C-alpha cells in the first residue's frame, strides 16, 4: 500500500514548545485512511473502553512495553495520563472479564509491522529517527482540533 502523506497535526498543550511535527505520532492501519480520530476516540481506544471503530471494525490496539520511553511520552503527551494509570485500567478490564488488553509489541519495528498488517489497528511511534520515516507506509490520521486533552 502506498503511503498517504496527510500531515498529522497533534495538538499539544501550550506549555509544550514543539514545532509542527510532534515526536510521538499515532499510526493506524491503511484501512483506517478515511477515519478522523478525535482525542476522545483516541483515549477511548487506548483505555479499551470502546472495542470497535465507528464503522464497526474491531479495534486492535498496539502498545510498547510499560517501561519504554516512547510509550511514556505517548501516555503523557498524547493521552494526558501516566503509564501506571493505563496499566491499572487494562489490568482491571482483563481480570474482571470486561475487556481486552492492548497487544504489546517489543520494538518500534514490530509496531510498524503489526499496525500495517492488521485490520483496524492503531498504535504509535517516535518519528524522530529520520531514517525511519521513509520506511513507514502507515496512514496518518488527523487529530481533530479543539478536543479536550
Amino acid at each position, binding site marked *: 500500500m502506498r503511503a498517504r502523506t496527510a500531515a498529522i497535526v497533534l495538538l499539544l498543550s501550550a506549555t509544550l514548545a514543539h514545532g509542527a511535527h510532534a515526536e510521538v505520532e499515532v499510526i493506524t492501519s491503511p484501512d483506517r485512511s478515511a477515519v478522523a480520530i*478525535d482525542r*476522545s*476516540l483516541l*483515549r*477511548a*481506544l487506548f483505555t479499551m*473502553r*470502546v*472495542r*470497535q471503530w*465507528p464503522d464497526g471494525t*474491531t479495534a486492535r490496539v498496539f502498545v510498547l*512495553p*510499560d*517501561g519504554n520511553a516512547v510509550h511514556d511520552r505517548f501516555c503523557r503527551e498524547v493521552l*494526558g*495520563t*501516566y*503509564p*501506571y*494509570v493505563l496499566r*491499572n485500567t487494562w*489490568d*482491571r478490564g*482483563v*481480570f*474482571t*472479564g*470486561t*475487556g*481486552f*488488553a492492548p497487544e*504489546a509489541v517489543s520494538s518500534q519495528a514490530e509496531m510498524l509491522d503489526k499496525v500495517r498488517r492488521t485490520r483496524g489497528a492503531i498504535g504509535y511511534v517516535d518519528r524522530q529517527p529520520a531514517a525511519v520515516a521513509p520506511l513507514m507506509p502507515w496512514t496518518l490520521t488527523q487529530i481533530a482540533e479543539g478536543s*479536550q*486533552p
Partner: protein
Amino acid sequence: MNARIGGSAALLAMLLTFAPAHALDYQLHGFAAQGLVNSEGNDYYGDSTRTSLDYYEAGLNGSLDLGHRVLLSAQGLLRDAGATDDGQLRLDYALLDYAFIDSSAVTAGLRAGRVKNPLGFYNDARDVVFTRPGILMPQLYLDSVGLRSLLFSSDGGQLYGRVSAGAHELSAIVGAARDRDLSDLEKRQLAGSNMLNSTDVDVEDLRFARLQDEIASIRTTLAFSVLDARLAIEPGNLFSGALEAELYVLSARYDAEHFSLISEYALQRSRSRFPGLGISDKNTGDSLYVQLDWRLRRDTTLYLRHDMSFSDRGDRNGRDYARETGQDRHDRFSHDSTLGLSWRYGAHWGLWLEAHLIDGTAAVPNADNIGALRDPHWSLFVAMLGYRF
C-alpha cells in the same frame, strides 16, 4: 449435571451462530501468587504465629470476541487463605457482555452470567494481587471477616453505561443476583463456628450499584457504591430469622505522577430479626482508610495505609458493648497501620512486602481463631510473590 450439559450446548450453539467468518479474536491471561504470613498475637490465614504459607491464589481467564459487540469471558481461580478459604477451584466469573452502544462518547451494555460485583474501587478485581491496593484488602471489603464470598461475584445480570462529557468520564453499573443458598464454608465464615452448618441460609435480593466520575483535568476519580442483601435463615428453626444488610461506600482517588492518594469510607447498616431467639437488632458500623502510594521509581512503590473499622458507629471504643455483653471491647474495632513496598520486575513478576500494626480484634478472621483468646494489640507481616501473563 444435566443443567450443566444443557448450558454448555446452548453456549456452543450461541458461539456457532455468532462466529464470524474469520478466526475469533481472543485473549488468555493468568496469574499465580504465593503468600507468606507471620503474625504476633492472633492467627491470620493459617497458623501464622508460626508463619503460614496457607495463603496463595492462582487463576486463568479467557476472553473471546464473538463479534457484533459481544464478549464472552470466564475466569477460574483457586485461593487458599487459612481457614477462611479452601483452595478449591471455583468459577470466578463467566459472562456474556453485549455492548448495545459502543462509541467514544457513550457506551452502554449488559452482562449476564456470573459477574464481578462493583463496590468501591477494588472489589471487582480483589482476587489478583496485581490489581489490589496491597496484599491485604482494606477492611471495608470484608476480606477476613464476614461473607467475602457474597461480595466477589454473583450469578445474575448487570447493566452498565459510560458517558464522556468534557473532562468527566461518568460510568455506572447496576446489578442484581439470583437468590442462592450459602455453602458450608460460607456459613462457617458467617458464624465463626459450625453452628449454622445444618441450617438453611439463603441470600436473597442481592443488589449492587456503583456510580463513578473520572475527572481527567484534576486527575481525580470519585465513586459512590451501594450493596443491598438479605440473608434468610431457615423457617421453623430455632435460629430462623433474617439479616438485612446495606453497605454504602464513598471513594476518592488522586493520581499524580509520583504518588496517588486513595481514600474510601464505608457505612454498613444491618438489621437482624430472630424471633425464636428474641433478637431484633439494628446496627450501623463504618470504616475509613487513607492510603498513600509513593512511586519511588517506575517499578517500585512504597505505600502507607491507615485503616479503621468500627462495628458500631455509636460505640467506637466498644465500652458500651463490653458493659452490655461482658465481651472484650476490642472486638468492636480495628485500627490498622500498614507500611508496604511493591516491586515489579518486567511485565510478569511482582513482589510485595507489607507490615501491619493493629489495635483491636474486629479484623481477626473468625475461622482461623475459633475458641482462641484474641490479642488486641497485634501485628502482621505479609509477603507475596506473584506472576501474571
